[in-house]
């Protein structure tokens, strides 16, 4: 029991660390991708290839002057970024980072908690993520911030619906809400127990999901809450120093989490096709799987950035139209079609 | 069950009508649909089937009330044609009304508390919006919001009651609850008692019985007249039928526990509403208080629960609805520009539109309970029910209050026939209204002459 607990603790801390690390390097990656897409090289001074740049940024963030506007609601002003950060980190709890490790005959699951309602948990956490933005935006007592916050809340509520609906179709196929089971279902070896990745069954669902994920993370082309050309900086206009850092960090962590969720739900999670047929040692296979999982996550993070530097920003009404008039009906149709096909297949 | 299908289908159809531009034919289709609903319901007579694992039971009680609601809705649609036509969101309104009718049918046919709750909510939510459908009118907004706040507040009480009852009995099914209660495990009786009382409070809010009535006049006054008509007829019927169904079937075996409370509520309702109605200047408000008063009369049947209570209620609500709809239709036409017409705007109606004056007179006489109109028999049944159970005191009180009622009803009659009209322009009416009034009047008179038609039903 205590061994498992120790393992879980280690897992918690390592996942926490990895999350932060990946978030940090996402900033680096973002700049790099941006640069490359714009035919530049990006940061390359701090360390080799500029790899220490995130550290430098972090130090800069810490060293910046802490400004709390006089007219703001001081308590909430500080609470805002904390909530944003907290909810961002919490989502990682239910994601299965890998298969099972067997050490000394004890099976260790590379997942912090296998909730039977894993997807719902993620939804819950994501849905309260908006509080961070709203509280911060409101507490700043600045009209740009407030507008950003309002936009954020409307946007997140709207897209959560389509997101949920797209996942419902998936759940109909998998028959479970547990992420561990969903991931496991997409594995297997050649033969009778071979299962395809869910993307094969749910391409439209995935498309909707990824669009919604963009919107939920306030990423371009849905970064209306922080449109610098319109709202100066949106909800974090008044923020500086580490509080701003928290917001930015939260955004990258969200990106990381949603990439992980996407990979788990639609791209087989930690499963590598045909790896079971290679006859590897289970532990090695697990570790390989985890690595592969992070590669998938990395690809999606890259994809996030790629899109950011490709597409222009939506106008606000276009955003809402897309959410309500296209994605939701499409998602409902997807659910209906999925249901029909399932009935026909029976 | 067919009724539910048809009504919800109609609702969705009217939403689709906006898309496919069926607006022209929507009205006749809805009317036909309502008649079909009533017809199909009647065809189920005496079958007493329950549907969906005993969520709804269409016994004769439910069928009678549902069919009644469908017919009243039919009349209501006839009356409110111009309301729909003058509105930009025609189809939305149709849909809302039809959905609320679905809710009403649930409220009279439920046999599971979940269905009661959902029925109430479907009905209420549609009405919150309809009450506020005159956007630019602050009165309407206010009415809508008050209705909304009070409705949700009441829902809270109702739900708390349901929760407690569930806690004691472990089920939401009326039959099972009844079984458990009759089995008489006294272990949780205090919880059960609290639950029953809370549900009563919640439902009393909905039927606007007196300590919980204060929202009703405001809401009735502020809402557009046709919506008020809807509220004071269909909603009231559904709410009361639901109330009665719950207490008469489910908690009847512990009636000793709650009957005193109902008695107090009934007495208060009768006294307060009738007396307050006297002081009202706005006709709509007066009708609102009168509708509260009628809830009081209806509550008497619950106090004196016996085997003819159900039919007494059915008869009462039908009589009340026919008269009330007629009155509202006239009010709607008379006070077309000024929604909150005082009794003065009825001055000289007999000269401006004799038929309307006559219709209003008959309606008011029926409401006041003058024989041989239906309203009289309705009251009479209630009195007999009370008598049979030995509540002579309440009957005497009801007699006194109905006398008070005559005072305020007759004020309008006097205004119509006595006072000189401010304008001599005749009140313009549509044929639809006249047809509707004729139907209302005929049913008021026929119900009064042949009450056995309804009484023997249930």
């Amino acid at each position, binding site marked *: 029991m205590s061994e498992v607990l120790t393992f879980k603790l280690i897992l918690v801390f390592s996942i926490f660390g990895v999350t932060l690390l990946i978030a940090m390097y996402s900033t680096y990656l973002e700049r790099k991708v941006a640069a490359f897409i714009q035919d530049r090289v990006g940061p390359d001074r701090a360390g080799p290839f500029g790899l220490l740049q995130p550290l430098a940024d972090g130090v800069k963030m810490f060293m910046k002057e802490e400004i709390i506007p006089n007219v703001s609601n001081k308590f909430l002003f500080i609470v805002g970024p904390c909530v944003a950060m907290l909810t961002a980190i919490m989502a990682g709890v239910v994601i299965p980072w890998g298969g099972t490790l067997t050490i000394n005959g004890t099976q260790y699951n590379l997942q912090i908690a296998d909730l039977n309602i894993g997807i719902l948990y993620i939804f819950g956490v994501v849905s309260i993520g908006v509080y961070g933005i709203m509280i911060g935006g409101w507490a700043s007592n600045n009209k740009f911030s407030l507008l950003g916050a309002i936009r954020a809340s409307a946007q997140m509520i709207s897209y959560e619906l389509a997101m949920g609906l797209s996942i419902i179709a998936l759940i109909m196929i998998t028959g479970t809400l547990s992420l561990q089971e969903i991931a496991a279902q997409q594995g297997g070896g050649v033969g009778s127990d071979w299962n395809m990745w869910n993307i094969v069954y749910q391409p439209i669902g995935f498309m909707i999901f990824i669009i919604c994920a963009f919107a939920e993370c306030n990423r371009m082309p849905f970064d209306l809450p922080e449109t610098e050309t319109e709202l100066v900086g949106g909800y974090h206009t008044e923020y500086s120093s580490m509080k701003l850092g928290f917001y930015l960090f939260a955004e990258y962590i969200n990106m990381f989490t949603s990439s992980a969720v996407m990979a788990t739900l639609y791209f087989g999670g930690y499963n590598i096709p045909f790896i079971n047929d290679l006859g590897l040692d289970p532990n090695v296979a697990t570790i390989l799987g985890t690595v592969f999982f992070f590669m998938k996550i990395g690809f999606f993070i890259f994809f996030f950035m790629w899109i950011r530097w490709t597409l222009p920003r939506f106008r606000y009404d276009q955003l809402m139209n897309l959410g309500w008039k296209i994605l939701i009906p499409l998602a409902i149709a997807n659910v209906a079609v999925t249901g029909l096909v399932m009935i026909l297949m029976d | 069950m067919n009724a539910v299908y048809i009504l919800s289908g109609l609702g969705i159809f009217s939403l689709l009508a906006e898309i496919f531009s069926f607006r022209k034919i929507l009205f006749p289709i809805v009317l036909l649909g309502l008649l079909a609903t009533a017809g199909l319901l009647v065809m189920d007579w005496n079958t007493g089937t329950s549907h969906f694992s005993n969520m709804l039971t269409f016994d004769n009680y439910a069928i009678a009330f549902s069919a009644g609601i469908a017919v009243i809705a039919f009349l209501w649609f006839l009356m409110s044609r111009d309301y729909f036509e003058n509105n930009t969101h025609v189809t939305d309104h149709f849909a809302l009304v039809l959905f609320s009718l679905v809710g009403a049918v649930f409220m009279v046919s439920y046999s599971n508390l979940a269905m009661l709750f959902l029925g109430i909510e479907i009905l209420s939510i549609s009405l919150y919006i309809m009450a506020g459908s005159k956007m630019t009118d602050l009165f309407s907004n206010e009415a809508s919001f008050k209705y909304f706040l009070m409705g949700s507040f009441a829902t809270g009480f109702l739900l708390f009651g349901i929760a407690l009852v569930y806690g004691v009995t472990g089920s939401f099914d009326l039959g099972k609850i009844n079984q458990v209660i009759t089995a008489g495990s006294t272990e949780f009786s205090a919880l059960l008692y609290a639950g029953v009382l809370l549900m009563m409070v919640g439902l009393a809010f909905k039927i606007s019985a007196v300590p919980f009535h204060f929202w009703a006049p405001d809401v009735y006054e502020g809402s557009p007249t046709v919506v008020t008509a809807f509220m004071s007829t269909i909603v009231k019927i559904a709410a009361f039928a639901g109330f009665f169904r719950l207490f008469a079937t489910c908690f009847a075996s512990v009636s000793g526990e709650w009957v005193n409370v109902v008695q107090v509520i009934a007495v208060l309702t009768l006294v307060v509403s009738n007396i307050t109605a006297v002081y009202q200047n706005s006709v709509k408000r007066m009708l609102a208080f009168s509708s509260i008063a009628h809830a009081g009369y209806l509550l008497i049947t619950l106090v004196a629960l016996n085997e003819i209570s159900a039919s007494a209620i059915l008869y009462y609500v039908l009589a009340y609805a026919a008269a009330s709809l007629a009155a509202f239709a006239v009010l709607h036409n008379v006070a077309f520009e000024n929604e909150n017409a005082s009794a003065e705007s009825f001055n000289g109606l007999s000269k401006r539109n004799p038929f309307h004056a006559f219709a209003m007179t008959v309606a008011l006489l029926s409401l006041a309970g*003058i*024989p*041989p109109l239906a309203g009289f028999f309705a009251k009479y049944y209630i009195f007999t029910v009370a*008598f049979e159970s030995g509540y002579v005191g309440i009957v005497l009180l009801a*007699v006194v209050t109905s006398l008070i009622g*005559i005072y305020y009803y007759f004020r309008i*009659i*006097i205004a119509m026939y006595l006072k000189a009209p401010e304008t001599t322009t005749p009140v313009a009416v549509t044929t639809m209204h006249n047809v509707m009034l004729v139907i209302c009047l005929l049913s008021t008179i026929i119900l009064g002459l042949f*009450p056995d038609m309804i009484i*023997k039903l249930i």
Partner: protein
Amino acid sequence: MLTTLLILWPLVGAAILLALDARFAKPWALTVSLIELVLTIVTVAQFQPDATTQFVVNYPWVASLGINFYVGIDGISMLLVILTTVLTPLIILSSFKNSYEKHISFYSLILFMEMALVGVFVALDGFLFYIFWEMALIPIYFICLRWGGVNRGAVTLKFFIYTLAGSLVMLVGLIYLYYQTPGEHSFAVEALYAAGQNLPASTQSLIFWAMFLAFAIKMPVFPFHTWQPDTYHTSPTQGTMLLSGIMLKMGIFGVIRWLLPVVPQGVNEWASTAIILSVIGIVYASCLAIVQKDLKRLIAYSSIAHVGLIAAGLFTLNKIGMQGAMIQMISHGIVVVGLWYIIDIIFSRTTTQEIASLGGIRNSAPIFTTVFVVIMLGSVALPLTSGFVGEFLLINSVFQFNNIIGAVAGLTMILGAVYMLRSFQQTMLGEANVRTQNFIDLGLNEKLVLYPIVVMVILIGVYPAPLLKISEAAVNNLHQILTNYQALSQ
């Protein structure tokens, strides 16, 4: 069947009237009422003057509540039906020279009223009685409301609420009785009699008061009379005629049919109270009548006085009193209709009803004066007029009951003579003034109304036997019931 026809014919007539052109309204209404009269005569011709109830029709109406369409005619009802059907054509005729606006509704209301009145008198089912009772209220209310005088709104409302209050209490009593009926509950008169008579005395008293209140208000007996003078004063003449000529009799009839035999012990207990109230009413109303300046009010108060006497006589519970009440009802109905018409004529020609501003009409209108004299004498109960028979019998019965009360009740004749003669003197005699000097004598129409009345006043005064005979057996029967119970209770 004849009874049903009697009830339904005016209703049918009223319905047809509503569809008719305004020109035909008056003749048609008259025709209907005359046909009704003919029907009554047919009925009377077939009527056997014994104690039985005849022409019985009994259909179930609201079976679940034991309500039947149960009507029939016995001697008492017969008399009152006659009164109704005789007076209605006269009343209609009396309105011919008035030009009421919307007179279609006016006449249909009168016919409707006639239907309800006949219904009240022939109903043998308690509930049916109540229905007709209330139905009679509606047309008269609207007649007063629409064609009445100043302040009619408030006055008629008062009247309506008063009477309805009484009748609702009566309804409560009836329902109570209904639940006491043995076996299958029923509102049939026999069942109610049986139920009521079996009740303990205390309950009977309660029922007595419940019912008596309704009847007392309708009549009206002393403390419940306050609605009456105003209403009479405000109503159009035809309304007043209906009110005092026929509707007032509903109350007395109610006492006879639905009170005395139903709760005999209760009656026993409270009869003296009722008598005292009635007698107080007589004196009080007579005194007020003396000081009235307005003719209409004067007659209104006199009506209270007369009806008080009838009530007093009735509650003495002896045969003379009852028979006297019967005959006096007829007489009072006829006379008072005549008086109202006379006042109407005076008013229409002089535009005033104030006694003080009249005078000297005799000079220009001798026929009118003569008619007035006869009818007035009928009212003050001069021998050989209709009033005399009734009042004599009534006072006699009250004397038998108690000398002092009888003496007081006897005042009614004296006081009646005082105020009637005084008013006659002041209006007809003396100097003619501006208003009265060109008083036109009776026209044909008016003669058609007043001559029959005069004839009837005299005829009944001279030869009341046929009328007495019609009701005698029924009254005897009733008296028998009461004496039985009196014997039983003592």
